[in-house]
């Protein structure tokens, strides 16, 4: 008996619970030398903005203990090029395509959501709310429950298709922002985005990254992300997509047991291009080994 890996993130059925995380998988097509996209539950695109963005000046990345900092600055082709160039090619592949969306104002979020809504071959929209709101003094949308509620509400109105909200972990109590997003109609919550950090070039007495700070990802943050998953699980009803430092199926199991319906693999894609497929296959092997029929029997079973 082949184990049943399918999961339902709200109305979005995934053939397995493993997606690739935004910003770590390009637009998906770059991975064709290494894997079939159909081996994945889904892919999440690089964050899309109304217009193409060139991103931050280099140095943009630096390795840290069991992790990395990035300050890519959301370089992307823009929503129009995504719809005209990338999505048609992705449609050829049997996987769920999720568009990650960001803006510097509420209006920008809405603009991108409206353009994406209902696009053939798109399974869901994921809002990246870890962006500074340029209209509100640069405050991060996702770090304030009220601001998060407003942008979620606006996007909910703009898009009828499944809407996932991706939470920032840089908050005192992630349950507050989770509840705010749920109350405004998010169909699922993705967590977590990167933690703000900084690395210093001690020889030059300068920040390593041109942007000074960057987002920490990778195994280093896994214990923090698992804890937030477990906290949010008990605070909301909507499905959770867990992520943060998943390198192996065992790591993914931590999130699934803690309450994540699906997971995303991010930094691991850089370390090993087949990492996400290996995680999915590892979950299948785990089910077989333990004689469990469906991964859904495990979701949230942590005691």
């Amino acid at each position, binding site marked *: 008996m082949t184990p049943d890996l399918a999961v339902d993130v709200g109305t979005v059925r995934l053939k397995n619970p493993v997606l690739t995380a935004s910003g770590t*998988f390009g637009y998906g097509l770059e991975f064709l030398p290494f894997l079939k996209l159909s081996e994945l539950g889904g892919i999440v695109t690089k964050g899309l903005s109304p217009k193409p963005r060139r991103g931050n000046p280099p140095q943009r990345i630096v390795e840290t203990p069991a992790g*990395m900092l990035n300050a890519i600055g959301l370089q992307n082709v823009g929503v129009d090029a995504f719809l005209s160039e990338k999505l048609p090619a992705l449609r050829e592949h049997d996987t769920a395509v999720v568009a990650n969306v960001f803006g510097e104002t509420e209006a920008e979020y809405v603009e991108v959501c409206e353009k994406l809504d209902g696009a053939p071959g798109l399974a869901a929209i994921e809002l990246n709310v870890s962006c500074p709101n340029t209209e509100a003094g640069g405050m991060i949308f996702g770090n304030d429950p009220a601001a998060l509620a407003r942008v979620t509400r606006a996007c909910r109105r703009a898009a009828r298709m499944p809407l996932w909200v991706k939470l920032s972990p840089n908050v005192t109590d992630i349950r507050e922002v989770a509840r705010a997003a749920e109350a405004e109609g998010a169909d699922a919550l993705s967590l977590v985005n990167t933690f703000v950090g900084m690395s210093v070039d001690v020889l030059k007495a300068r920040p390593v990254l041109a942007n000074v700070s960057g987002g920490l990802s990778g195994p280093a943050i896994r214990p923090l992300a698992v804890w937030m998953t477990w906290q949010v699980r008990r605070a909301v009803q909507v499905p959770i997509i867990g992520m943060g430092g998943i390198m192996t199926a065992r790591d993914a199991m931590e999130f699934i047991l803690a309450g994540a319906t699906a997971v995303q693999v991010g930094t691991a894609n850089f370390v090993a291009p087949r990492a996400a497929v290996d995680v999915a296959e590892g979950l299948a092997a785990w089910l077989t080994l333990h004689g469990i029929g469906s991964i859904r029997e495990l979701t949230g079973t942590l005691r």
Partner: protein
Amino acid sequence: MVQDFATPVLRNVDLGRGNWLLEFPAEGVAAAMRPAQFFMIGVPGSDVLLRRPFSVCGLPGTFADRPDGAVQILYRVYGRGTALLASLRAGATVQVLGPLGRGFTPPSRPDARIVLVAGGIGSAPFPAFLAELERSGRRATMIYGARTAGDLPLLDWFRERCDGVSVTTDDGTLGARGVVTDPLAEMLQDADGGRVHVYACGPSPMLAAVAKATLAKGVACDLSLEAPMACGFGVCLGCVVPTRREGGAIAYERVCVEGPVMRAERLAW
């Protein structure tokens, strides 16, 4: 095409002063690989998370007597990742992704005068390139600079294969005291600019100076660039350099995909 493979270290040779030559079998990819293309190399189980980029230095045939299907990288101990590489012995396993990026292409003009400019460990991609040129009966001149005499790995090897190697050192311990752009400027002065083709690899400030010197003379110049990399295959957008678009707008292009070899005039340094 590009492959991700685990492979044993065949040899890891200490060339002195922190320079090493690492050899491993790469049967599946060696044949298709071009000089100045690169590998991302990692050591499973180590505390170095991301792989590190290294140009291919030797392809089959580059170095006499090396086993078929084996390739070499020439590297310098710089930080944690390269120190880790240097600690490996024959038999240890490395995880290798490659070939990656765009390598050197020989000049299309058959009468081109080829000048290689290397700064220290930046000489790494030139052995394979020289071997390829040799196979098509072409020769090259080399300018090889470093801080000090010990930082010129494989110098004797280059001397045997080039039409002259001009050495410069910052401290004057070997060759002329000075930097590579000194002999380069001299060469370009007399030369027919349209015939010369410069290939350069080394630290970014050196590449910028070489670019400036060649552009001023209208000389063709290919640079093999460096940048910190997370993925090496175009998806993290971590390795970008500023380039100039038509019309003058600045864009950020990926060293790992659009490079590492880029034409000097494209860079917006």
